[in-house]
């Protein structure tokens, strides 16, 4: 009975795969046709360069940077509690992602003539955000350390 099920599973898997690959190839073709029809060859090269650049930026620059920081943080783990370290790392990641999204706004604001686009002082707000993150992180770490200590006492 089990073997029959397995055969059925394999057939369903194969069918699902075939459909997905069919949809995938169709999507890629449609995208490629749209690009070729609506953009000049130079523009298409521009798209390819941007895609390649994005991969290099992520795989060769951002990821090793993140790895380096996480290894350094774990080294610090000899002295700092693991929970505190985790909270701090999380806070840095959230802040970094926000920064990544907001920095282009800081730059673009210097270019735009339209007064209702990019209305805030983004650089200042980014600074305040990091202060808020630091304060929240400190608070969370204090609460976490207190709770951990209490738990340890209770266990003893």
């Amino acid at each position, binding site marked *: 009975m089990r073997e029959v099920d397995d055969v059925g599973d394999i057939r369903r898997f194969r069918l699902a795969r075939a459909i997905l690959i069919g949809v995938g190839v169709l999507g890629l073709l449609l995208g490629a046709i749209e690009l070729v029809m609506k953009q000049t060859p130079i523009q298409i090269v521009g798209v390819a360069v941007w895609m390649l650049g994005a991969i290099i930026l992520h795989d060769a620059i951002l990821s090793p940077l993140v790895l380096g920081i996480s290894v350094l943080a774990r080294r610090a783990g000899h002295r700092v509690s693991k929970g505190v370290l985790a909270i701090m790392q999380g806070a840095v990641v959230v802040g970094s*992602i926000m920064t990544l999204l907001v920095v282009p706004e800081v730059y673009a604001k210097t270019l735009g003539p339209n007064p209702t686009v990019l209305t805030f002082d983004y650089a200042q707000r980014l600074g305040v955000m990091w202060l808020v993150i630091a304060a929240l992180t400190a608070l969370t770490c204090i609460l976490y350390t207190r709770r951990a200590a209490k738990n340890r006492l209770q266990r003893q």
Partner: protein
Amino acid sequence: MGIMLRRLLLNMQRAVAAPSRNPRLAVVIGRLLATAFLVCFGTGLYSHFLQEPLPWMHFPTQPSNLYQYTQGIHITAGIACFPLLFGKLYTVFPNLFETPPITGIGSLLARASIAVFVGASLVEITIGLLNTFQFYPWPFGFREVHFALSFVIIGSLAIHIAVKLPIIARYWRKRDGYRPEVSFDADEQSALDAPLIDVPRPVLGTPLEPVASKVASQASGLTGRVFAWIDGTPRPQPRTSRRTFLATVGASVAAVVLLTAGQSFAVLKPFNVFAPREKGIGPNQVPVNRTAMAAQVTDTAMDAAWALRITNGTTTVAFTRAELLAMPQTTVNLPIACVEGWSQMATWSGVRLHDLVGRVAPDGAALRITSLEKEGGYRVTQMGSEYVSDLSTLVALTLNGETLDIDHGYPARMIAPGRPGVLQTKWLDHVEVM
């Protein structure tokens, strides 16, 4: 050389291994990311076809704020893709150093499709974000490439799911557990342990202890020293790491959504810290996308001889602003909802388009609408008959109780329910029945 490369790749894999880099978390984040991508694709197609409808297409005009929501969701889900995509790439990073990198034509195609998928996704969400504040630092057309890449992404997503189907099925449910993040078989482990060729032979007669010699060989050379240093760091605790990872991704998504979505959703307005747009500002308390200056209409729009022409074949009627103001006025509450995601509810008053077109054509007419703009992709647009028939579609003359500001389309502009802002033609010049 081949052996060295393999060893380097295996070392890289070992170095980047972490408890939160495992197939189960890749599946968890992958599901969320795929959902966000599909939401963006669906709402994006809706927006695209509203602007470039196929001949047989008709769209709902009510609820009048439908587009405000679909496009607000499009932009907000797109912004949420940043932390989700980074999280997903983080979970699968060790796969980058898989060895051998390519085992055959199948694996070559799979790898190529991943490269296309990752590259296209990163470019798509980046240009989408920058477009929300009208920043275009790339050498290609935004709309065309954003549209084309959406198909590339959905296509390579389908191929990616097909390739990873066994892993996705295996780790769909939590009870099926977490595979060790990176595991090496005996062959790979022996390749990792093998002494480096450039290690100097121990001097005869002073045999080193086997373990010590292995450590020495591992630590030789710059890369060897780097890997040994990484290996020497304390291992993270799996459960804490996984929880921290999910909490961090969750907090990041919450932060990017909460702090930017106030430009699209009124309920989040108090939390709008970083969005490029702000509700309730600008002339007539409504933000502006294209100013009169940018559209080069500052002279023509203020011309005392201006009149709105409405044509059907050889019949043309014309109305000055005073004549339009003398006709029965209708007041409606309709949002202006931009393709860039921001939206603003406003009170408009003016003449029903249905009544004006009724002077030259029977019901059911579709229109070609021309603006005074000198140039631009939306100088001439088309309007389906469903919008002409809707009684809330106006040739608007006032906005929020004041005379329409020139940046909002003075002397007269179109406002229709459920349409993108770019199709709410400002500085009306000519309306033709098609």
